């Protein structure tokens, strides 16, 4: 076997980003109590809508279908479940043993494998049980308390800790319990034909338990022990039953049932008992190790952080070690994104040095599987009662513990049952007009798909792959009913710190649909796998049977391709149409009078000189320069010349290359000449009187120069092209800038740039545009050169090197990133999805080659894509759908690589579930993309109407599903509570706003950004984050690299939050504004800004001084933490009331009224009116 697995540390390693956990969500809600505790007033009506048995029923119905369909899937495909568990298992083992001894423990793993499959099913069981518990607990509390707004499980304890236990022992809840169990588990029997024994037992368990559970809650120890003993006996009895079913299940995946296993089997079977007995036992067993640790609710993030840094170290060390190192196994968490659960998973595979620390820290997160493992390991001991004890006890402590730490609880629940908590959470009705604090404390987390935890763990990180609906509706009709767009948001070439790179002579793909093998395929047996997109059964090639990670044979399901949803393959020559191209960079620079005046050349040449060695590429890297004014100048940089030669071509109507061979030269061979040129260029044109700009001819020349190889053309333009092909005329009427009526000229004036881009795209050349103009330069037309050639667009309005230092600094920083970031050449990206779904529109910068194939001449890590989908065939016969993007590109080192992301989502058939799974950020970003298309093809007014209608329709549809909601209130499901706010933000965004004076280029640029930015950046653009920074405290701070980073809560984007006594930081993605109030504490100004008082703070301040004061340190660490989380380092602007830039700041306060637009509250009323119509 010539296969090697290695880990690649990306060159531009992304600093580990402390992504907020979805678990913090509940904590955010912790802020709400004031709201909720407002007496009767709005509660009195609330029960009417929220108690809605109708809704509840819907829920339950949908639940059992999802639960039971999920196990059904697993039953059919035992190996998948097994192998997922296996990773866990083996990782856990690696934890204890060093990687080198991994082989010796293999026997142990084998054992674990077989038992793991039982564990798996049992876990399933416990989920469903938990789910029951969940929904019943909701309804029971509702019934007894009439406290529906908090029907969310998690907020309850926070809001009123006393209330919760009270509601439980009540008879009402008891009966609800019974019903819930029966109604849930009975249908299961019918569904499982293969595992009838198993499922029938699942019905049996709840019945018997039903009597014990309530007892467990309100009585003390004696009751516990009795419940326990029942449990034990129960589980022992069950074990026999289970053994049969499990053997059945087992047939496919693990055929090596070793004698030793019987012990572990039995032990295992105590688990289901535990799982089902106290509905939350699985959770609590996860928490068994924690009581000692139990951190404060708010300090949880700090715990999350540390494993990561430890992990980071471990990664660093391990990436240099042998290729078979087990760390490399789990990408999802290694990559540093993801949610804490993933993180804690990966913390377990980390080998030797950091083990004690990480394992300790990972435990509090009560992650489904790892948490079960201690139980499992105990289980190998002769006494099978042991694990059930350990599992059971904490189960009873479950509720008391809850109050100690909400975060901890929710995170521990997160591992196992987030899907359950999430759905009610997502569906919890929020009265928008009355609930004013709908923003979470920290950034909005991506919703987690309602999958079982195995799949969820394996799923693609939401940073690279997000779907607008995490619960895919079964039919187009259902999708239409929900009135939400279905689509994907992609960030496929994102910088990843860690990524499994696979070198293999055969890349295993489905033979009919060419899907790459991924974690969501099912292995029918050892030799065959079933494609999860087209359901074709494929053979497993001989080579794939060998697993280089474990150096074992016959475990195809443990290969890294099947363990990671994001992998990168080194492609063979089958994936090449021609030998991989070298990295070729061509810079096309405007040197007309206007350009020289703006002074950008100095910055470009300086940055290039600094980063010449950091340009991605290998020894073949080539570089060239073209400058243009009314003529086009070429530079001969051929090795051997004493100095660069300038060749001027003045025949711009019929452009030709003077010396085709020596214009693009090898970077390394001609480095001296290039440096000479770069240092000479800024001064060469200082006295130019040429005001014309022949951009078109220069681009034609550039295209001719690049067409033999392909590569990247970077165009720097400072004015409207005024000569030769592609000349443009000013189309903007400045008097129309603030018109509320029609905004014209959003489309291109000429096809020249589009055609050029298409030609370039055909020759694998991308054109990136830097527009640094102070006047109108028709970006709408110019942008086409980048749009269709997969380039990127940067725009610096009123750029001037000295008059506008903020722009100059931004330009410099952007340029640095631009020059040094990763780049992929001659790329294509194909998006495949499960049969029945189809893609109908793409958004982004690319050329669409085919219905599912995008041609990307270049791909860069900052490019995002969006895809709209429709459901062509009903998805009734499947419970899961998958999406796979495969990005085939040539790396700057001349390797052909394929990066594959796979996302798996559940299918639902009820409208409520569709709403529960809506990802509001993704929805808004997709809508923004659609609105851009609409405003170009139709009109801006149409696009704005469409945006408003999107909110109105979806909320109206939601309110009509919950029929007993009062029509007089505007209610949104919790998952969509930010929807109106975001849409209002969109309407006030530069791209779509009317009434406010907006330059046409600014507007077009904002539109270009909406199309090409990845979701994270776009969201900051649409809805910036506002923090108060004058009173940063260490409470709830997180720790990153030994630095304390305070975490101030998010503020509403409203002037009412800005107090004169405070200082505020607004994070707009590419700009940070710091607004200083007039009466801001002088100590703060002195310490942080370095000036004695408010009056002395200068107007143009773009940097914070490094002072020793604590407040300064906190502020700087917070800002640098924010900066680290994004590739472009943003520009900082200090804003005072006298500052002209304050309008920029205040226009981002989108909740406030402006002369031309609604305030948030007015907007809500407007929506409500529209709905009632």
């Amino acid at each position, binding site marked *: 076997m010539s296969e090697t697995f290695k880990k690649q540390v990306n060159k531009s390693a992304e600093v580990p980003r402390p992504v907020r956990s979805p678990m913090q969500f509940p904590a955010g809600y912790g802020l709400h109590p004031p709201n909720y505790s407002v007496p009767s007033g709005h509660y009195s009506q609330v029960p009417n809508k929220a108690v809605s048995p109708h809704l509840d029923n819907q829920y339950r119905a949908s639940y059992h279908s999802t639960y039971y369909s999920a196990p059904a899937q697993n039953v059919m495909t035992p190996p998948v479940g097994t192998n997922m568990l296996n990773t866990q298992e083996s990782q856990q083992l690696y934890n204890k043993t060093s990687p080198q001894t991994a082989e010796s423990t293999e026997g142990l793993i084998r054992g674990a494998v077989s038992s793991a499959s039982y564990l798996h099913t049992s876990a399933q069981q416990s989920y469903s049980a938990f789910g029951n518990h969940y929904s019943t607990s909701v309804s029971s509390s509702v019934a007894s308390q009439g406290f529906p707004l908090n029907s969310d499980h998690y907020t309850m304890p926070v809001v009123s800790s006393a209330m919760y236990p009270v509601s439980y022992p009540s008879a009402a809840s008891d009966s609800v319990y019974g019903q819930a169990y029966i109604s849930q588990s009975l249908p299961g029997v019918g569904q499982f034909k293969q595992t009838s024994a198993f499922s029938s037992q699942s019905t049996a368990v709840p019945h018997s338990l039903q009597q014990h559970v309530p007892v467990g809650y309100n009585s003390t120890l004696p009751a516990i022990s009795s419940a326990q003993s029942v449990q034990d006996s129960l589980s022992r009895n069950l074990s026999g039953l289970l053994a049969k079913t499990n053997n059945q299940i087992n047939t496919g995946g693990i055929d090596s049932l070793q004698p030793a296993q019987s012990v572990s089997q039995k032990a295992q079977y105590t688990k289901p008992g535990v799982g089902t007995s106290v509905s939350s036992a699985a959770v609590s067993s996860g928490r068994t190790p924690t009581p000692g640790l139990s951190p404060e609710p708010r300090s949880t993030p700090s715990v999350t952080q540390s494993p990561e840094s430890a992990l980071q170290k471990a990664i660093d060390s391990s990436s240099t070690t042998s290729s078979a190192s087990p760390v490399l196994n789990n990408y999802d968490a290694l990559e540093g994104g993801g949610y804490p659960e993933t993180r804690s998973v990966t913390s377990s595979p980390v080998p030797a040095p950091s083990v004690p620390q990480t394992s300790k820290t990972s435990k509090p997160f009560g992650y489904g599987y790892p948490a079960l493992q201690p139980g499992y390991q105990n289980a190998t001991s002769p006494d099978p009662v042991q694990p059930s004890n350990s599992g059971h006890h904490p189960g009873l402590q479950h509720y008391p513990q809850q109050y100690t730490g909400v975060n901890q609880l929710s995170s521990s629940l997160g591992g196992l049952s987030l899907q359950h908590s999430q759905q009610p959470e997502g569906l919890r009705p929020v009265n928008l007009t009355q609930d004013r604090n709908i923003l979470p404390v920290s950034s909005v987390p991506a919703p987690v798909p309602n999958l079982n935890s195995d799949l969820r763990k394996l799923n693609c990180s939401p940073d690279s792959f997000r779907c607008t609906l995490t619960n895919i509706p079964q039919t187009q009709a259902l999708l239409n009913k929900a009135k939400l767009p279905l689509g994907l948001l992609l960030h496929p070439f994102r910088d990843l710190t860690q990524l499994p790179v696979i070198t293999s002579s055969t890349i295993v793909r489905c033979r009919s649909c060419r899907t790459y093998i991924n974690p969501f395929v099912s292995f029918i047996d050892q030799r065959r796998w079933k494609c999860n997109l087209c359901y074709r059964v494929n053979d497993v090639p001989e080579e794939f049977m060998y697993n280089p990670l474990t150096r074992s044979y016959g475990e195809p399901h443990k290969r890294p391709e099947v363990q990671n949803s994001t992998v990168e393959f080194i492609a063979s020559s089958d994936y090449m149409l021609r030998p991989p191209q070298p990295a070729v960079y061509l810079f096309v620079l405007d040197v007309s009078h206007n350009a020289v005046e703006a002074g950008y050349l100095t910055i470009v040449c300086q940055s290039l000189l600094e980063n010449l060695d950091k340009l991605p590429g290998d020894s073949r890297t080539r570089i060239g320069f073209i400058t243009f004014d009314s003529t086009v100048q070429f530079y001969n940089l051929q090795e051997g010349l004493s100095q660069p030669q300038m060749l001027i071509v003045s025949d711009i109507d019929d452009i030709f290359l003077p010396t085709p061979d020596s214009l693009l030269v090898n970077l390394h061979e001609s480095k001296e000449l290039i440096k000479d040129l770069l240092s000479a260029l800024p001064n060469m044109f200082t006295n130019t009187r040429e005001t014309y700009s022949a951009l078109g001819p220069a681009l034609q020349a550039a295209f001719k120069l690049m067409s033999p190889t392909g590569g990247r053309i970077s165009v720097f333009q400072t004015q409207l092209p005024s000569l030769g092909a592609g000349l443009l005329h000013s189309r903007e009427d400045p008097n129309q800038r603030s018109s509320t009526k029609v905004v014209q000229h959003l489309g291109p004036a*000429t*096809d020249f740039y589009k055609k050029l881009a298409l030609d370039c795209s055909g020759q694998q050349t991308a054109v990136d545009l830097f527009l640094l103009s102070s006047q109108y330069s028709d970006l709408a037309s110019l942008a086409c050169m980048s749009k269709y050639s997969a380039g990127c667009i940067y725009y610096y309005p009123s750029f001037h090197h000295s008059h506008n230092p903020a722009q100059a600094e931004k330009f410099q920083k952007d340029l640095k990133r631009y020059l040094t970031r990763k780049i992929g050449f001659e790329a294509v990206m194909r998006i495949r999805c499960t049969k029945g779904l189809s893609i*109908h529109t793409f958004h982004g910068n690319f050329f*669409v*080659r085919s*219905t599912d*194939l995008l041609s990307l001449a270049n791909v860069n890590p900052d490019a995002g894509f969006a895809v709209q989908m429709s459901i062509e065939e009903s998805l009734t016969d499947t419970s899961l759908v998958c999406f796979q993007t495969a990005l085939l590109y040539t790396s700057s080192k001349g390797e052909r690589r394929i990066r594959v992301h796979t996302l798996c989502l559940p299918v639902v058939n009820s409208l409520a579930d569709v709403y529960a799974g809506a990802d509001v950020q993704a929805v808004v970003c997709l809508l923004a993309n659609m609105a851009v298309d609409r405003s170009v093809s139709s009109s801006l007014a149409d696009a704005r109407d469409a945006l408003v209608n999107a909110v109105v329709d979806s909320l109206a549809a939601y309110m009509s599903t919950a029929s007993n909601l009062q029509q007089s209130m505007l209610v949104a499901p919790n998952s969509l509570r930010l929807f109106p706010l975001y849409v209002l933000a969109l309407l006030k965004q530069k791209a779509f706003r009317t009434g406010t004076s907006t330059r046409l280029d600014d507007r077009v640029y904002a539109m270009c950004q909406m199309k090409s930015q990845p979701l994270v950046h776009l969201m900051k653009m649409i809805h910036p984050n506002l923090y108060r920074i004058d009173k940063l405290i260490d409470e709830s701070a997180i720790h990153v690299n030994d630095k304390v980073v305070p975490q101030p809560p998010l503020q509403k984007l409203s002037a009412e939050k800005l107090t004169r006594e405070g200082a505020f930081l607004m994070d707009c993605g590419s700009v940070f504004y710091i607004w200083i109030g007039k009466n801001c504490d002088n100590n703060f100004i002195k310490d942080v800004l370095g000036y004695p008082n408010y009056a002395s703070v200068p107007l143009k301040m773009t940097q914070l001084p490094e002072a020793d004061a604590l407040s300064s340190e906190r502020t700087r660490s917070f800002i640098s933490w924010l900066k680290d989380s994004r590739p472009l380092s943003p520009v900082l602007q200090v804003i005072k009331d006298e500052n002209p830039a304050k309008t920029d700041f205040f226009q981002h306060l989108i909740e406030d009224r402006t002369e031309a637009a609604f305030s948030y509250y007015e907007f809500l009323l407007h929506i409500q009116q529209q709905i009632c119509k």
Partner: protein
Amino acid sequence: MAFTFAAFCYMLSLVLCAALIFFAIWHIIAFDELRTDFKSPIDQSNPVHALVLPEYSIHSLFCIMFLCAQEWLTLGLNVPLLFYHFWRYFHCPADSSELAYDPPAVMNADTLSYCQKEAWCKLAFYLLSFFYYLYCMIYTLVSS
């Protein structure tokens, strides 16, 4: 039995209609190839574009001829398509050189299916009108 101008119009349109049918089939094949991935949209656009303008002009010619021949019913049948062609012609992307089928947009599933449907509808229309012209030609020849 006399050879009138109307009869001549029908004879000519019969021949040209055959050409239009051929164009429509050509379009259908081209879009099908696009959909099934055999062709790049850039290649696609060129031959198709070559046929768009001839098709529009031939159809306009019909209308003018029938107007001159005072065949009001036939003209009435053709006018809707004439207006549709005008609409397409003036709503095409920026430069009129790229008629109707914009390479970057044509692969958009909605656009593609629209184009395909359009081509099928036109084929049906031209086929029907072919037989209609045949009938009318014989009728005018016989009746006058």
